[in-house]
């Protein structure tokens, strides 16, 4: 018989191998699911995982979908390493989108290359301030930032609805709750003709690379890692936990806010109540899927986006129901978390008990 045996130290090989194993296990179990639904499993898996990479239409869409996930997950990963849990990135995303959109709409019709940077700044500041609520409450009163940040998502969502029903509503829109379409100067430039790949995608990847450098080379990155692995040692070396809380929540809030503005000024081109797509929550999964490592997060963001785009293609091409796609995505996370056990444990033959 087999049994699980603790490893002396976490296996570095397994840290990087388990996500790949999880994808393989998902393909096998998902293939079984698709077979049970009467579809060719190989065809379905190919449509989801390979086809989008080869098809000139789907490939850029993967970038568009992955960008907000990567940007938010990068910010979250710093806090998660340091044991600071921002679960409300979705709310910061929404506030960033509202603030940036408000700036864009305030200058409606005004041309100028300064407008987009100003909108981005507004998005960053709004996301930062929204994250400061749980940060300051934790620092001053010791409240739980998980709860506060999560609850603020719903506040932000209601605020968005109020804005598009009120001050930011399109005056020519028959009272429908949507803003005007942004004018050209307030829309993110498209990088490649005929696609929706916008400037924000490139910025997201650049920010991820900078985050990787800071984490490995800069003292802030060192402190973040130290605080997560050895909080007492971190304190002795001069890391102040309250400052760390403010830094980590502020950073994740600012990046989520920027992602929100990118979504509004990029693919959406306006502010609508349907803007929040759950990117702030999915990014939590992406952060862990990428092992809280910026480079891993880039890869994880693309894998996640791939399953969305591939899943849609499978609906269209093979007539797979949406629910089956959702189950398939759920499997991926299930296997990832399940296989995580092999980082700290290994399978060993069961030793015979001495009678």
């Amino acid at each position, binding site marked *: 018989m087999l049994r699980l045996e603790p490893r002396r130290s976490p296996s570095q090989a397994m840290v990087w191998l388990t996500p790949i194993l999880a994808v393989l296990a998902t393909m096998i179990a998902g293939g079984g699911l698709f077979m049970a639904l009467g579809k060719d499993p190989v065809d379905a898996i190919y449509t989801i995982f390979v086809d989008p990479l080869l098809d*000139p*239409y*789907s490939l*850029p*869409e993967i970038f*568009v*979908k992955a960008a907000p996930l990567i940007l938010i997950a990068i910010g979250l990963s710093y806090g998660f390493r340091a044991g600071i849990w921002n679960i409300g990135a979705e709310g910061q995303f929404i506030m960033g989108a509202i603030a940036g959109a408000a700036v864009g709409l305030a200058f409606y019709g005004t041309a100028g290359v300064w407008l987009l940077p100003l909108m981005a700044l507004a998005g960053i500041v709004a996301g930062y301030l929204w994250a400061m609520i749980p940060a300051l409450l934790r620092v001053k009163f010791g409240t739980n930032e998980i709860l506060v940040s999560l609850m603020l998502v719903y506040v932000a969502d209601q605020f968005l*609805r*109020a804005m598009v*029903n*009120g001050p930011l509503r399109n005056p020519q829109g*028959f*009272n*429908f*709750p*949507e803003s005007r*379409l942004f004018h*050209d100067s307030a829309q993110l*430039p*498209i*990088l*490649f*003709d*005929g*696609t*929706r790949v916008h*400037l924000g995608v490139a910025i997201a990847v650049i920010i991820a690379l900078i985050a990787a450098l800071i984490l490995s080379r800069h003292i802030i990155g060192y402190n973040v890692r130290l605080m997560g692995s050895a909080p007492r040692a971190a304190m002795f070396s001069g890391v102040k936990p309250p400052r760390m809380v403010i830094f980590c929540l502020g950073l994740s809030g600012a990046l989520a806010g920027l992602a929100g503005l990118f979504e509004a000024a990029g*693919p*959406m*081109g*306006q502010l*609508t*109540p*349907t*803007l*929040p*797509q759950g990117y702030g929550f999915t990014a939590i999964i992406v952060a862990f899927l990428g092992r809280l490592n910026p480079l891993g997060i880039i890869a994880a963001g693309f894998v996640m986006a791939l399953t969305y*785009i591939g899943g*849609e*293609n499978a*609906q*269209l091409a093979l*007539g797979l*129901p*949406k*629910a089956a796609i959702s189950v398939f995505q759920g499997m991926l996370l299930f296997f990832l978390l399940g296989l995580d056990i092999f980082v700290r444990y290994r399978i060993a033959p069961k030793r015979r008990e001495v009678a």
Partner: protein
Amino acid sequence: MTLFKSLGLAAALSMSAAVVSADGHDPLSVGFIYVGPVGDYGWSYQHDQGRLAVEEHFGDAVETSFVESVPEGDSERVIRRMAQEGADLIFTTSFGYMTPTNRVAAQFPDTYFEHATGYQRADNVSTYSGRFYEGRTVQGILAGHMTESNIIGYIASFPIPEVIRGINAAYLAAKEVNPDVEFRIVWVSTWFDPGKEADAANTLIEQGADVIMQHTDSTAPMTIAEATWEGLAEGETGVYAFGQASDMMEFGPTARLSSIIDDWAPYYIERVQAALDGTWESEDAWHGLDEGMTSIGAFNANIPADVRKEAMDAAIQISGGTRHSFTGPINWQNGEVWLEEGETADDGTLLGMNRYVEGIEGTVPN
């Protein structure tokens, strides 16, 4: 604004589009985008019934495809994908698809688009919707007569004109037959969420509502109304409800008073025919009981004969054009006069309706 020219990407895209449209004798490819699952037994289900009717009517001359549960905020990609795959005619069936549909349409001038419930049109974008409020008038008459508590519960989705129009129409009709009637409105901020809709129904029942109306797509409120009829003593009555978008008869055999049925099949068949004939043109269709895009489901056997006749007459008069759901005198909620005696509402006001009429309590959420 383009920073870099693509690496042959645009060329590849336009080539694949050209291949598809090269052969005019291919079956007409018709695509549908749904906001909910096809199994919602409400809004999306009815659109899918329309799709199936198109398939049956045209047989091999058409080829249909659909994508269900497409989030409105993330729909442009799916619509574009469909156009890219060579769809000749695409129906996008939720309000939130309006801007994405128009944006994609601008890039695919040879593809026809039809957007349900919106107001933005282009040379290759039509809009269509049902005058569902006409059905609400009939429901209001039934609800006003059948309520004993005089409290009618209303589950509303989003505060857009279409939904507010329905509330106002239902209230005016109910008030006319029963001056004591009160409306309780719960906004659930979703088109389809059985859990939230069930919570809303329970809340309304706790507040004393004995007739529930819904402007959401699931059968959950109907199921809950039906459950109130179990184990009742002789002569007691439970809570009544109305089918929404589809008939929902099987979900509330006792509780269901009637229903508003969206029948998209005739319109879809007409538009597909036009596309096949090459006579398709951009237009704005807003059909009601007259064209059958909105129709009234069978009446509950518990409804007394005179009430039945009154509701039926109203439906016949509306479809014959002799009665309008919004006929003055009607004041807005704040007492401001909207329609004078005998005056009827113009479509412009109806399309932009964003406030309640006099007598409804509460505020439209902002």
